[in-house]
């Protein structure tokens, strides 16, 4: 079969799975008075359509910030505005000011789902395809297999099409940025045969396009900050490499100018009055909401089982502690990236930084794990076993949320499907020697001081063991009643188990990054 038909089959499969998941319920369906994220998105459409820009982020008579007030950066607001125009065209009731609160109907659900599908087809899927086809090694079949696995990643599908969110926009931007950096790294700017991006690339230079895209992502969702340090270090590292006195300085200036201009453009409507941007920032970073909410699989929530940090420490200490720990875990990988700005390092740094943020930073949502899962998706072809393991764990960590939304069935089905298909398509179990797990150097180091260990076999056993544990916990948390004294027993167990996994993963990815052997040459040969 030709490439195009394989690609279209894989895209169609992804789309079918997405739309089939969308048959199920969404976050907060039929649960007044607050509903859920679905209502939040609808409410933002209502607010942005009916109110002038200056009122969007302020508590006014028509804009009750306590009822799903806008707390995402301006680009999200603009996106809502565009959707609202379409909604108004289809049915004015959907965005009527105040009167439309809690509006739910079958057609409206279809409309909301369609907007997600539309954005997905337009941005996310092309980005995945371009990534797989231009920047993965292997035969075209292997590339298609990689693309299919990324497209079927259950976490994203469930949150977008079940729970309801638009994380795809920032996803896109993240991916295309990666691609952009890829281009510089391997193809030196121009040789990419993509018409549209080729034009953009020629006009702006790939670095600039990349930083532009990232700035947009940052302005779509503030959580994109999780990835900001690797971007910064990568670009800075590149500038240093070119010489900070000559071409590098020029590049640095260009990049910073791009970032500033993009920021200015995004924030233009809010710049007229100094109070505006401050209020937006205040909405974006709600420090007063506490160290963590609900049950998140991060350090604070898990530690909370043993020590009640929330009550023990003052808010300022908490802030400081989380900030310090996050920084501590990001720094090694960022410094390594700074000294060695390659694509491989960059991808690893993205994983490490977003995981560190997820595990240690202040006010983390369980959905934020998707931000770490995305860079991990880029590894499904290189380190299949670990990537699959991580992606499944990340889906599992959202179990309480998904069960609350009534998405148990699609969770089970998509996770199992992803597990089997990806293990089969990527032949993950066969491709897990020490070398392929990128642990070769580690092996050599431990050879002297430790008895010889068969790391690959240990990891495979751990993989199966953890899958069984996750399956068992999923099963018990759904079918068994928790004891009356501990109503939150199962969600806590889920988050602690996932936290242990994530801790393991961050150590693993840091090890891989910091002990990267000189594999640049061999990589070039395979290209």
């Amino acid at each position, binding site marked *: *079969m030709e490439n195009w038909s394989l690609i279209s089959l*894989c895209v169609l499969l992804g*789309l079918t799975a997405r739309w089939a998941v969308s048959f199920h319920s969404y976050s907060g369906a039929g649960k007044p008075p607050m509903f859920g994220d679905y209502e939040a998105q609808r409410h933002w459409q209502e607010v942005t359509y009916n109110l002038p820009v200056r009122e969007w982020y302020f508590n006014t008579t028509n804009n009750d910030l306590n009822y799903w007030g806008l707390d995402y950066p301006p680009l999200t607001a603009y996106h809502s505005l565009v959707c609202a125009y379409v909604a108004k065209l289809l049915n004015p009731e959907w965005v009527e000011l105040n009167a439309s609160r809690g509006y739910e109907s079958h057609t409206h659900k279809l409309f909301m789902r369609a907007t997600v599908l539309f954005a997905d087809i337009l941005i996310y899927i092309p980005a995945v395809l371009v990534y797989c086809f231009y920047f993965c090694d292997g035969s075209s079949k292997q590339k298609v297999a990689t693309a299919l696995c990324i497209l079927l990643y259950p976490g994203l599908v469930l949150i977008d099409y079940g729970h309801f969110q638009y994380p795809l926009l920032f996803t896109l931007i993240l991916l295309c940025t990666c691609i952009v950096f890829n281009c510089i790294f391997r193809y030196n700017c121009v040789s990419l045969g993509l018409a549209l991006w080729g034009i953009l690339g020629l006009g702006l230079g790939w670095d600039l396009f990349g930083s532009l895209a990232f700035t947009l992502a940052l302005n779509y969702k503030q959580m994109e900050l999780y990835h900001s340090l690797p971007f910064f270090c990568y670009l800075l590292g590149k500038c240093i490499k070119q010489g900070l006195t000559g071409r590098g300085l020029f590049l640095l200036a260009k990049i910073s100018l791009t970032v500033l201009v993009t920021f200015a453009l995004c924030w233009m409507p809010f710049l007229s009055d100094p109070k505006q941007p401050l209020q937006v920032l205040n909405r974006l970073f709600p420090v007063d909401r506490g160290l963590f909410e609900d049950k998140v699989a991060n350090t604070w929530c898990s530690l909370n089982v043993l020590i009640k940090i929330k009550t023990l420490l003052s808010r300022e200490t908490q802030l400081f502690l989380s900030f310090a720990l996050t920084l501590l875990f990001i720094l090694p990988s960022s410094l390594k990236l700074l000294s060695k700005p390659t694509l491989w390092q960059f991808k690893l740094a993205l994983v490490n930084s977003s995981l560190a943020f997820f595990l240690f930073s202040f006010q983390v949502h369980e959905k934020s794990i998707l931000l770490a899962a995305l860079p991990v998706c880029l590894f499904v072809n290189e380190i299949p076993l670990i990537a699959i393991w991580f992606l499944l764990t990340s889906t599992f960590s959202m179990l309480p949320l998904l069960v609350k939304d009534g998405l148990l069935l699609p969770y089970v*089905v998509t996770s199992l499907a992803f597990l089997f298909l990806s293990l089969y*398509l990527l*032949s993950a179990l066969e491709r897990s020697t020490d070398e392929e797990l990128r642990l070769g150097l580690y092996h050599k180091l431990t050879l002297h001081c430790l008895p010889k260990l068969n790391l690959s076999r240990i990891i495979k056993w751990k993989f199966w063991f953890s899958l069984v544990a996750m399956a068992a916990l999923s099963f018990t948390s759904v079918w068994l009643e928790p004891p009356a004294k501990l109503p939150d027993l199962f969600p806590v167990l889920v988050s602690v188990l996932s936290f242990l996994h994530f801790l393991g993963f961050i150590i693993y990815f840091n090890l891989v990054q910091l002990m990267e052997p000189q594999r640049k040459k061999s990589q070039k040969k395979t290209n």
Partner: protein
Amino acid sequence: MAAPMPNDHSWFFALALGVSFLKCLLINAYHSTDFEVHRNWLALTHSLPVSQWYYEATSEWTLDYPPLFAWFEYGLSHIAQFFDKEMLVVQNLNYASPATVLFQRLSVIAADVVLIHAVKECCKCLREDKGKDLLGKPSFILTGLLLWNFGLLIVDHIHFQYNGFLFGVLLLSIARHFQNRHLEGALLFSILLNLKHIYLYIAPAYGIFLLRCFCFTQNNPDGSLQWRSFSVLRLVALGTIVLSTFAVSFGPFIALGQLPQVLSRLFPFKRGLCHAYWAPNIWALYNIADKAFSILGVKLKLLDISKLPKASMTGGLVQEFQHSVLPSVSPLATLACTLLSVLPALFRIWHRPNGARGFLRCLVVCALGSFMFGWHVHEKAILMAILPLSLLAVESREDARTFLILSITGHYSLFPLLFTTQELPIKIFLMLLFTIFSLTSLKTLFSKGGALLNPLEATYLLGLIPLELICEFVYPLTVWQKTFPFLPLMFTSVYCALGVAYAFIRLYISLLTCSDTTKRLKTH
């Protein structure tokens, strides 16, 4: 899709598992009244004694499948009680709690194991199964065509029916004939007949083939019949198998003296010539010709509007369709047409059987002939031709061409089954998925002799895209939607009828000339 090792059979399980997961995702999709039909059957077989099964009429969806299927429902009902006991109460009409939906959907998915097994057996029967590349392997393509069949997916797993399981039995029986295990094949087919009697349409092919190729043990050197080789023993064995199956199934009802009642439930002739939505067959063309003539007649002042039957002007959505110019068609006439249409094919395999492949071809012709000319045919019946034809399609180029035309038009004609907006994307995605797969995989399989379809056929098939766009997207926005809501359906069935008729003719020609093609194959 991209298996590392083409030799092992892991790809088969990947395809089967993949489609099963997809089916599970469709559990919450729209389901038609057939869902309630089967729930009702579960309830009545569970809570009533056998003697009342075919008399019970609380629900309008009375039991109208043969007894073995009723027993199948009876068996399912014993598992159903662990999901939700309420669904087993006959009086709970239109009961569809989440547990009921889950159970019914899962029962279809689980029953499809039969289909998966049958497909595996069919793959073993393929003549040549080499192909260096996995994606170009005939058995891989056949598995894709059968397990991922668009029609089966939407009819069974969205619309709701148990066709996958029934086709599994049919395909298994065909595979047994290919493997020369004729008695098993005959047993399976008689079981199938007692599960769903629509398969009577293809029974003539079975009857003639078994009589000719099983009961007569030898042929003359030129392939014609050697009368002296008749084996009474084989006929007796065959007869015993078939009769005992029927005895097991209908025996209790004969003993109870309920046979006429059962038969009247199985063969209701009170329905109209065409279903509410015309299946794409000859009668769709006949109806449209009648309508065209009547409009033309009125325009030319040859006919008087007041004298025309009223229904013909709003037709397409009414069950009783009265023809205004052309003679009306009686059930007997359709029966005669059906028989006439399959007779040459039967005669052909009697005369020159051409092995199990000739039989399979004849079976497809029977299925398609009854689809083209039958009384009150459902559009879903096209699957009875498409699925067996897949087996032939991976073996010969000409059959692949027929298959593409038949499957694309036939599947497209199933679109009106799912009319809800929510399912619109999924039916389009699935249709594209299956069509692209069948087009490109068959093209690679027969890549030697140029394009599979000629320009005219390709244009006809591409014409389905604008047809879909107009019917589902443009037409509902126009003013005619209110006055003539049936027009899109009518166009769909007429347009598809052309393709199905064309495929039927092609298939007939290939059947009547098929011994030549096999000879040519041998000389190659």
